[in-house]
């Protein structure tokens, strides 16, 4: 930069200096299973090395629960359910959940750094979204614990029993909160299996649950891969399964549970349409598109991965979208200025790469910014596809990465038809300055969550869940209590 020239015709070439978040994540070098209120080694002695996806280097090692461990955890949960938790008055249960919420809030920064180190997501998101929302879920459901009679007038809400909960790697702590908080509030006990690549914050939550002095066995955390999850789903001592993850695994769970007495809720994949009408506030819509598809590297089941643009604004919108993408900062997840972090695992990176390759082969036109990527770790550039046909795999299958397909439409009817033309039905977005159009269009969209002039907004008071192959049951809000209770008429 020229420090004295007023009339310099070229601007400052300004690169933001690194601004790393330095809080200590307090990650142990080894984690055991959390069963019956204690950390215990796994029966078969198996441990899994957990990587930091931003460097592909080991972060810690975590015990792998086998069938015997699952059995131990389910029995502990059963004992806790029958002897303590289901008999405890709601107001007392509520105190424990409030305590978890407060402890988590006090240690928010530590959990945020741990989440970013284990999952690869930018600290901006773990700090501003994942951890605060997790805290909010515990606070929200703590409030319901002593008010269940008011939630279901004329009925008594009894707990279901022991809940087996299997959660994904994209929002590790938040998904644990979504699952644990309503289960505890309604008097159930829990055996939770975190995803195989991201168990760290669940296990830190286990430490915190110990600190909160929750009765032993009320919450058990059993890390592991698919066999662990399968053992939990199929264990006869489990009364209810709550699963968030892929549609393929969701279908397997439905088959496995067919003919059993177990209740289940499934929150599965998505392929959301994000519909931009010509009368939308275009610059804000561009920002909404960025948040819809690049939030958490696109590892979001409700990500706005199919952009449908009305043709009158398609050209300008795509121009602006590319301009905006060029300003995204990709790199160290712990840098406060990072917009896009690391892809969660080698396996997921391979999946993204293979689907993008199919897009090229099928004739769609690809665009990526020429930003530098770190040398180590798992990374993928934000990617746009134009010239996309509804029949392309990239328009049909969930990519779960920072990849956006763009299609144009002429009439609202065409947009609605395209949006609904998918086996999924989790979420959609609509952008228009006309209120009446919002209501007219959203009434016809088949999706569990529809955002108008915004995207990827979450709140514990709002139910979340899908139509069609995006799942069944709702989590969050009053609706989120239902899967965890049996209703008895009291009239």
């Amino acid at each position: 930069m020229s420090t004295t020239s007023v009339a310099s015709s070229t601007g400052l070439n300004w690169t933001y200096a690194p601004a790393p978040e330095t809080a200590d994540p307090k990650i142990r070098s080894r984690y055991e299973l959390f069963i019956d209120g204690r950390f215990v080694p796994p029966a078969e002695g198996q441990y899994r090395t957990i990587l930091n996806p931003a460097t592909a280097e080991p972060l810690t090692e975590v015990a792998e629960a086998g069938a015997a461990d699952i059995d131990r955890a389910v029995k502990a949960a059963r004992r806790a359910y029958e002897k303590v938790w289901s008999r405890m008055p709601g107001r007392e249960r509520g105190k424990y959940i409030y305590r978890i919420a407060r402890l988590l809030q006090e240690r928010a920064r530590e959990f945020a750094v741990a989440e970013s180190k284990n999952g690869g997501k930018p600290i901006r998101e773990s700090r501003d979204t994942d951890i605060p929302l997790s805290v909010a879920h515990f606070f929200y459901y703590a409030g319901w614990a002593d008010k269940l009679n008011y939630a279901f007038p004329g009925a008594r809400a009894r707990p279901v029993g022991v809940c087996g909960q299997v959660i994904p790697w994209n929002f590790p702590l938040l998904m644990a909160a979504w699952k644990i908080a309503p289960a505890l509030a309604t008097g159930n006990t829990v055996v939770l299996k975190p995803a195989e690549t991201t168990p760290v914050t669940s296990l830190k939550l286990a430490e915190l649950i110990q600190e909160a002095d929750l009765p032993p066995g009320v919450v058990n955390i059993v890390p592991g891969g698919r066999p662990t999850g399968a053992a939990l789903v199929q264990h006869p001592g489990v009364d209810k399964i709550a699963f968030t993850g892929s549609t393929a695994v969701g279908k397997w769970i439905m088959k496995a549970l067919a003919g059993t007495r177990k209740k289940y809720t499934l929150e599965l994949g998505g392929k959301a349409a994000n519909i931009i009408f010509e009368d939308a506030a275009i610059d804000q819509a561009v920002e909404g598109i960025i948040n819809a598809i690049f939030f958490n590297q696109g590892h979001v089941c409700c990500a706005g991965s199919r952009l449908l643009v009305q043709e009158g604004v398609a050209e300008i919108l795509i121009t602006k979208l590319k301009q905006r993408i060029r300003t995204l900062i990709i790199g160290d997840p712990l840098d406060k200025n990072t917009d896009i972090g690391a892809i969660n695992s080698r396996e997921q990176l391979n999946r993204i790469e293979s689907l993008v390759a199919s897009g090229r082969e099928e004739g769609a036109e690809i665009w990526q910014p020429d930003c530098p990527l770190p040398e180590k770790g798992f990374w993928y550039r934000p990617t746009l596809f134009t010239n996309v046909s509804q029949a392309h795999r990239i328009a049909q299958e969930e990519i779960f990465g920072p990849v956006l397909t763009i299609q144009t439409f002429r009439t609202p009817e065409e947009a609605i038809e395209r949006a609904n033309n998918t086996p999924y039905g989790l979420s959609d977005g609509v952008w228009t300055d006309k209120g009446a159009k919002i209501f007219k269009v959203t009434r016809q969209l088949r999706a569990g969550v529809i955002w108008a002039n915004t995207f990827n907004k979450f709140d514990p008071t709002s139910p979340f869940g899908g139509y069609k192959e995006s799942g069944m049951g709702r989590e969050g809000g009053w609706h989120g209590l239902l899967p965890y209770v049996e209703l008895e008429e009291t009239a």
Partner: protein
Amino acid sequence: MQVVQQPYPNWHPSPPVDQVGVEERVARLAARSIKKESKVAALKLALSMIDLTTLEGSDSPGKVRQLCYKAKHLHDALPDLPHVAAVCVYPTLVRVAREELAGSGIKVAAVATAFPSGQADRETKIRDTRYAIDEGAEEIDMVISRGAFLRGEYGYVYDEIAEIKSLCGDAVHLKVILETGELGTLDRVRQASDLALAAGADFIKTSTGKIQPAATLPVTLVMLEAIRDFHLRTGQKRGMKPAGGIKTAKTAIQYLVMVNETLGPEWLTPSLFRIGASTLANDILMQLAKETTGVYQCADYFSQA
């Protein structure tokens, strides 16, 4: 006075602005963490973009001379400091400022067109502007007729700006003050920005500094978006000047981040971005001194303008 309603040339309907979306974008930009060498570079750049301003009824030649000296010597204890971009005064004080700033490279800007209210007829505004230019103003900061704009007389406002610009010609830079604090909504800010750019404004400027709120980040973002769209349509680069209420180095950096990520680094130059301020410079100087010495000095060590 006969008001003639007419569409302005190359008219494009202004896109709607979503206030909630603008505020979210602003919050995200304001959360950028600017440290170390990138902070020093930004602070020096911000200094070089300041239009050091005094616009009081009580302004005197002596006060303007002091201001001009400060403009040239921001803080001689620190090496390698830039000078500010311009000194901004009333037309009657332009001649004094020109004398003081001769050979410094610092421009002299004058407010005109019945600043700050703009409540005068066209002839008075033209005379006011011509006087400022004749006195030696190199930049004119005009105000739009907000009353006419809010009544929907866009043609009137367009003509007013176009006529002042024709007085300025290529030699004198025209900044058009929208006085966004009187426009009420971001939609109107956007419309006024589009109108001023179409009518020939070299810069669009938020405020006179006499009305609250003056410059804000959301208003500035909307105006920068208008400049971006104008550039996309015409290839021409126009400038932006938030003015009033920017008092701290931290806020100034937030504005620079916004320019950088909305219009791009080509706009990070005093020829395309200015900050109208009277007290900002010393806060930046305190920050720069702290980056050099590691400790904050008290305000008494920094000369007032």
